[in-house]
């Protein structure tokens, strides 16, 4: 189980996963909501590094742009427009908290058991990322996946217009 060769990939993987899990646990334990968003940004950036490790450079940069940039800023805007100095108060329901912890831990146990006992079949051929990851993804998006791509752009437009309409002040 622990017979892992210490390679560069393993060291990078270990560092990045340590950053991500520390960020996620900090997110749960910090008090101020703004600090939680900042520690979430660390998780997002660690995940981008992990995508680079998995030879998905384009997805990594999209991750930095969308998550570490846009979503974090959006959440900070959400905090600023609701309560400036919001502090997460201690949950008053210890039973609820314990049940949630048990549920999360048992789900992780099931998943861990499943991952450890499954024998993944051998790869038929090694992963070929292509010379230019961005170009390969672009070609695939505009040939095989053009209809989902266009549907998704419609969804995004509708969602953002809807968000503006919902958040707009009532006409006075």
């Amino acid at each position: 189980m622990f017979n892992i060769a210490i390679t560069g990939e393993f060291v990078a993987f270990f560092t990045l996963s340590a950053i991500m899990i520390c960020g996620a646990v900090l997110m749960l334990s910090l008090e101020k909501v703004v600090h939680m968003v900042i520690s979430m940004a660390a998780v997002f950036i660690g995940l981008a590094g992990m995508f680079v490790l998995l030879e998905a450079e384009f997805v990594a940069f999209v991750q930095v742009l969308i998550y570490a940039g846009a979503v974090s800023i959006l959440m900070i805007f959400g905090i600023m427009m609701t309560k400036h100095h919001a502090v997460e108060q201690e949950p008053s329901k210890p039973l609820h908290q314990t049940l949630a912890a048990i549920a999360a831990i048992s789900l992780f146990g099931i998943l861990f058991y499943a991952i450890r006992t499954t024998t993944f079949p051998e790869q038929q051929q090694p992963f070929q990322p292509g010379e230019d990851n961005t170009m390969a993804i672009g070609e695939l998006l505009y040939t095989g996946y053009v209809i989902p791509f266009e549907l998704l752009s419609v969804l995004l437009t509708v969602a953002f217009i809807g968000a503006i309409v919902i958040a707009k002040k009532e006409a006075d």
Partner: protein
Amino acid sequence: MLASYLTVAAMLFCIGLYGALVKRNAVVVLLCLELMLNAVNLNLVAFSKYGVVPSLTGQIFSLFTITVAAAEAAIGVAILIALFRMRGTVNVDEFDKMRR
């Protein structure tokens, strides 16, 4: 190596699930949802490299997921602002008008 990536993704997912169930500030609940979606993305990209038939399809799927998650975050924050204007709170326990 695939099992390690899947384990990290499972950890992130469970932390996100716990946060979404326990936290009371609605912004933090939205953040935890994003964390869960990110764990799924990590799975997709890991399988696109180490799966049985490695190809770029997993990366395309994760791009689609990121797009939908961005739309979800925007709508979520908009609903939150509208609710805050009506009720004056961001505490998810107090959004219980439909229960009464």
